C-alpha cells in the first residue's frame, strides 16, 4: 500500500510523469511555433532537440540566484515551491491508465477545479514578494486576467459535470462511457474552456501579465536561477494539468475502444493522444496570435465567449434528459 502510494506520488502520475509531460509539451510548443514562424527550433540536444527543455531546466538550476534587496524572503522562496506543487498534486487525481486512481473520492472534481485556481495564488505571491514597478503591474494584470477567465473556465467545466449529474471524476468518465465523449454535446463549452485555458497559461494572445515589450517579464521579473527554473517548470506543469482536465472532462480521458477496466497501456495511449490533440489546438492558436490589449481582454470573454457559454447551458439542460 505504502509502496503503491509512493509510486503514485513520485513516479506515476506524480512528479516524474508530470515533469516528463511538461518537458514534452514544452518541446512540442517550441518546435511547432518555430516551424510556423519559419525557424528551426531546438535541434541538437537529443533527437530533434527533444531533450533541450530538460537541459535548459538543469542549466537554469545550476545558475547563480540573485536575491533582490527589500525582498520578502519567505514569500520569495515559498512561491516557486508552491507553484510547482499545486499542479503535481492535482495530477494525482487525474485518471490516466484506468478509470480511477487511488486518491479519487466523491467530489474530487471540485478539488481539481480549486487547485486549478489556487495556482494563481502562487504566481501572485511570486510577483508581490518583490515590489518593483514591473512585478506590480504584472501581478495587477494577472489578477485582472484571472478574474475574467476564471469564471468562464469554471462555468464551462461545471456544465460538463452538470450534464453528467456528478461531482466526481469517476462519475464523469462513467457517464461518457455510456453516452460518448462530452465534447459531442458541449463543443461550445469546450471552445470556451480552451480559450480560458490559454488565458490561464498566459500564452499569446493573452500573455499580458508578462508582456516583455511593455513590462519586462511581469511578475517573473525579479526571479533568477533556481526560482526561475521552477517557475518556468510551473508554467509547463500547469499546461499539462489544464490539458489533462480538459481531456478527462470532454474527451473521456483514457477511455476508448478496446479499453478494459484494469489499468492498461491502452488507457495511457488514448490519454496521450487526446492531450496531444488539445495541446496542438492551443499551440497553433498561440503561434499565430497577436497580444490583445488590456481592454480587449474583457471584450473577448464578456462579449464573445459569454453568449457561447449561455447557449451551451441551454443545450446542457436539454442533454440531461437524453
Amino acid at each position, binding site marked *: 500500500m505504502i509502496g503503491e502510494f509512493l509510486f503514485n506520488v513520485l513516479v506515476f502520475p506524480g512528479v516524474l510523469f508530470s515533469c516528463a509531460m511538461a518537458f514534452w509539451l514544452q518541446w512540442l510548443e517550441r518546435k511547432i511555433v518555430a516551424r*510556423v*514562424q*519559419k*525557424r528551426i527550433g531546438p535541434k541538437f540536444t537529443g533527437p530533434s532537440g527533444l531533450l533541450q527543455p530538460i537541459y535548459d531546466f538543469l542549466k537554469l538550476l545550476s545558475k547563480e540566484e540573485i536575491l533582490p534587496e*527589500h525582498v520578502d524572503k519567505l514569500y520569495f522562496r515559498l512561491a516557486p515551491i508552491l507553484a510547482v506543487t499545486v499542479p503535481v498534486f492535482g495530477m494525482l487525481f487525474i485518471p490516466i491508465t484506468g478509470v480511477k486512481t487511488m486518491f479519487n473520492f466523491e467530489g474530487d472534481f471540485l478539488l481539481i477545479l480549486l487547485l486549478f485556481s489556487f495556482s494563481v495564488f502562487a504566481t501572485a505571491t511570486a510577483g*508581490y514578494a518583490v*515590489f*518593483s*514597478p514591473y512585478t*506590480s*503591474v504584472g501581478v495587477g494584470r494577472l489578477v485582472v486576467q484571472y478574474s475574467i477567465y476564471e469564471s468562464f473556465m469554471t462555468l464551462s467545466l461545471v456544465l460538463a459535470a452538470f450534464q453528467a449529474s456528478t461531482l466526481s471524476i469517476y462519475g464523469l468518465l462513467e457517464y461518457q462511457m455510456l453516452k460518448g465523449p462530452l465534447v459531442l454535446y458541449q463543443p461550445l463549452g469546450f471552445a470556451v474552456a480552451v480559450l480560458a485555458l490559454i488565458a490561464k497559461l498566459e500564452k*499569446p*494572445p493573452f*500573455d*499580458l501579465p508578462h*508582456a*516583455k*515589450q*511593455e*513590462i*519586462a*517579464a511581469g511578475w517573473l521579473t525579479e526571479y533568477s536561477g533556481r526560482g526561475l527554473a521552477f517557475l518556468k517548470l510551473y508554467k509547463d506543469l500547469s499546461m499539462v494539468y489544464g490539458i489533462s482536465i480538459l481531456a478527462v472532462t470532454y474527451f473521456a480521458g483514457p477511455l476508448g475502444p478496446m479499453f478494459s477496466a484494469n489499468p492498461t497501456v491502452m488507457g495511457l495511449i488514448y490519454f496521450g493522444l487526446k492531450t496531444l490533440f488539445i495541446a496542438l489546438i492551443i499551440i497553433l492558436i498561440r*503561434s*499565430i*496570435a*497577436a*497580444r*490583445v*490589449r*488590456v*481592454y*480587449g481582454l474583457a471584450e473577448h470573454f464578456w462579449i464573445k465567449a459569454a453568449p457561447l457559454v449561455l447557449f451551451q447551458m441551454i443545450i446542457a439542460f436539454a442533454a440531461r434528459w437524453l
Partner: protein
Amino acid sequence: MGARKIEETINAGIEDLRDTVRSYFDKGYNHIVTITGIDVGENIRLLYHMANMDGDLVHIATETSKKSLKVPTIIDIIPGAYIYEMEVHDLFGVNFTVNPWMKFKLLLPDCYPSDMPPPLWKEVDAKKVQQSLFSIESPACALKEPFSGVSRLSPESMVVPFGPYHPALKEPEHFRLIVEGERIVKAIPRIGFVHRGVEKAAESRSYLRDIFLLERICGICSFIHSWTFVQAVEKLLNLKPPRRAEWIRTMVSELERIHSHSLWLGLVGYWMGFDTMFMWIWGVRETIMDLLELLCGNRVHKSIVTIGGVRRDVTKEKLNTVIKQMKKFMKEFKQIMDEVLSYDEFIERTSNIGVFSAETARKLCTVGPIRRTIGDPYDIRKIEPYGAYEEIGFQVVTENKGDVYHAIRQRMREIYESARMIEVLAKEMPGGEAVPKRLFMGVVPEGEAVARGEAPRGELFYYVKSNNKHNPYRVKVRTPTLANITLASENLKGATLSDVPLVITAIDPCFSCMDRVAVYRKNTGEMFMLTEDDFRKLRRKWKP
C-alpha cells in the same frame, strides 16, 4: 537639385529676425528644417533654414557676438522650432529669449565643465573635453537628477520607467511614464545616452574620411547619410557625378528604404506581441540584405558612395539577380502583408492608436512617412528631386489618417513603390563609367552648401561649410527622428500602457541617430523624486 549651394542668404539683424521669419512664414515657408549655428570668429552666425512644400529653401542669417549671445526666439511662430533652439543653445551657448526650455540641458551631460566654452566653438579642443569628462569619477553625473521632472499628479498615479536599459529596447532611450492604472497621464522622454560628438569630429577629418564617419551615424539608414553629405560636397566642387553612378546610388537608396521599412514592419509585430509577423517579415527582409551585400559588399554600412561617383560598379549579372530576387521578395512580402492585414485582431489593435491630427503634425514640422500618413505629399524625392528620381518617375504614396494602422499601410505601400522603382532602375541602367578615376583627396573651395535627402524615416538635412582646406569648416546634420520625436511624446498622452511601444514605434524612431543632438525635456511642475524609501512605504501599505 536635392543639394544646392547657398548663393544668397537673407540677412536679418537680431531686432528684425522675428519679423523676417514671420514674413517668410506667411509666404508659405512654414516648415523649419533646422537652425544651424556656425562659429565665425568673434560672432556666432545662425542660419534658419525654412522650407515650403514645393521644395524651396530660404536661409535667414543672423549674427550675435560671443559676448552677448542673445537671440529672440521664434517658437511662438513655429512651435516645432523649440528643439532646434535647444540644440543651438547647448552647442553654441546662444540664449533664445524667451524660450522656456532654455534652462534645461539638451545635449551635453550635466557634468560638462562650466569653465569651458560650448563645444562647437572653434577654440574648444575636443581632446580636452574628452579628458575632462573622463576624469570625472562617477558616470552618474551625466544625469544629475534622474527622477527630476516627474511630478505625481495624484496619489493613484505611479511612475513606470521605460528604458534606457529595458529588455525590449534596442537603443538606449528613456521614457518616464506616469500611469494611472493602465492609462498614461504623462510621458517624459529622456534621450542622450550615446552622444559621440560626430559633428565636432567631422570638422577635423578630411572629406573622404567624413563620408565613412557620417555613415556611422545610423546603422539602418546609413547610405542616405553618406549620399546626402556627398551631394553637398559635390555642389561645393561644382562636380556632376556620372549618370550611371546616380542610378546606382538611387538603387542602393531604395533597397535601403525597403530594408528599413520592412525592419520597422517586423518591429511593429514584435512590439504588439505578434512574434510570428516579426519572424516572417524579418525572414523575407534577408533577401534585401543579401542584395545589398551583393551590390555593395556590405550589409549594414554600404560605403558605396564617394565624391564624384560610386566606389564599385555593378555588373549585368548582378542587376539580373536584383530583378529576380526583387520579384521573389515582392511575392513573399505581398503574401505576408495580405495575411497580416486580413487579421481582425491586428487591425483592431493598431487602428485609432496614437492618433494625431494633421494640424499637430504640421505645427511640429513632422517629416517623412509619418507626415505622409496624414495626407501631405511631403517627399524630398519629389519636391526637390536628386539622383535618378526625376528620370524614373514615381508616385508619392499618402494615406489619409494619422494612426498606427495607417502608418503601417503607408510604409507597406512605400515598399511596393520602391520595389517597382528598383525594377525599373535595374532594367534601364544606363551605361558608362560610374567609378571615378581616383578618390577625391583635394581641397574644397570656400562656400556653403545644403543638401536634403529623403531618408527612410524622413527628410535628412546636411549643411557643409568649406574654406579651401582638406577638412570641412562645419558640418551640420539634422536627422528625421529629431523632427518627429516631439510628435511621439505628444501622442503618448492618453494612451494605455500596452500601447506605449506601438505609439513610440509609429514614428520609426532612431534614437542613436539623434544622439548627436540629444533631447532632454523636463516639465516645469512639482519635482518629485521616487526613492527606495517610497517603494518601501508603498510596500508596507500593501502588506496585509
